[in-house]
C-alpha cells in the first residue's frame, strides 16, 4: 500500500516541477522539455497506481494507458519540435516573450 504511494507522490512532485518550468521558462525547447517532465510524472503515477489494484496481476488498464502514452508523448514531442523549428525559421527567435509585458 505505502510503496505505491511513495512512487505516486514522487510522480506528482515531478509533475509540479515540470509545470513550474513550463510557466516560468520562455525558451520553446525548454517548454517542450518541461512538458515531457510533466508527462514523466504522470507516467510514474499511472504505473504505480496500477500496483494499487493488485489481484493476480496489477491493473492492466493504467499500464496500457502508460504504454501508449509513452509513444504518443514521443511523437507529440517530435511534432512540437517541428513547430518550434518553424517558429524559429519564420520569426528568427525561439523564445516566447510577452510583448505587452515591460519587463
Amino acid at each position, binding site marked *: *500500500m505505502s510503496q505505491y*504511494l511513495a512512487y*505516486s*507522490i514522487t510522480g*506528482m*512532485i515531478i*509533475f*509540479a*516541477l515540470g*509545470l*513550474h518550468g513550463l*510557466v*516560468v*521558462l*520562455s*525558451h520553446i*525547447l*525548454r517548454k517542450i522539455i518541461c512538458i515531457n517532465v510533466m508527462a514523466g510524472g504522470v507516467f510514474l503515477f499511472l504505473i504505480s497506481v496500477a500496483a*494499487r*489494484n*493488485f*489481484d*493476480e*496481476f*496489477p*491493473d*492492466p*488498464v*493504467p*499500464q*496500457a*494507458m502508460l*504504454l*501508449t502514452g*509513452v*509513444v*504518443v508523448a*514521443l*511523437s*507529440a514531442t*517530435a*511534432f512540437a*519540435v*517541428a*513547430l*518550434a*523549428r*518553424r517558429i*524559429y*525559421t*519564420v520569426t528568427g*527567435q*525561439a*523564445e516566447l*516573450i*510577452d510583448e505587452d509585458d515591460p*519587463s
Partner: protein
Amino acid sequence: MSSPEKVTAQIKAPTSFLLGLACAGIALFLIAALIELPDEALGLTELSKQHMDESGVEHPVTAVLLNFRAYDTWLEVGVLLMAVMGMLLFQRRSDLRDIERMPAPDPVLNWLIQLLFPMMVLVSGYLLWMGKFSSGGAFQAGVVLGAGGVLLWLAGHPSISGFSGRLFRFLLTVGFGSFLLVAFYNVLLSQAILDYPVAYAGTIILIIEAAATISIAVTVAALIIGLQPVIRDRDRTPLEPH
C-alpha cells in the same frame, strides 16, 4: 537552434517565486487527493480477469490494449499518424526521399551496424510475439524497430528515406488501416465496431499488432529522421506539386 546567447527565464524573480509557490500548492493538492483515494477500490483488475478467456491472448495488458480497449489503441496509432502528417506538412513534403543523407560510415560503425541491426529486427519480432504471453507488444516492438531505422540512417544508409513515396505512406498508414478494416468488416456485419470473434481473436490481434508495429516503427523513425538539421530548408520556397 539559437546562438549561445543568454537564454534565461524572462519572468522576474518575485513572479517566479509566486509561480513556484502556486506549483507547490498544486503538488500538495494532488498528493492530498492521492492519499484520499479509497483503499478498497479494485479498479478494473477484476473485470479484466473475468474476460481474459475471451480476449484471445494470455497477457492482461495486451488484452486491454488490443481487445478490451482497442478503440484507445486505434486512436493512439491515429495520433502518431497525425504527428507525422503535421511534421511533413510544416516541411512541405509528402515523404522523406529528398532528405540529405549522413556522411558514409566509417568501417567500425558499419561493422557495428551489421551486428546490431539484425539483432534489433530480431528483438522487435520477439517483443511482438511475446505480447501474447508476457510484457511486450506492438508499441515496444515498433519503437525498437524504429530505433533500428534511425541507427541505419545515422550511419549513412538511406533507411526509411529510401522508400518510395507510395511505400512510405502505405507503411505509415497500415497500422491505422488494419484497425479500420476490422471496424469496417464489423460494421458490415452490424456487430460492435471492434468486436473480434473469440475463436480468431488471437490471430486477428497478432495481425493488427504486426501492422501497428510497422506503422509505429516507420512513424518514430520518420519523426526523428525528418527533424534532423541536415534537411534542406525548404520552408521558404512555395509549395511544389508532387
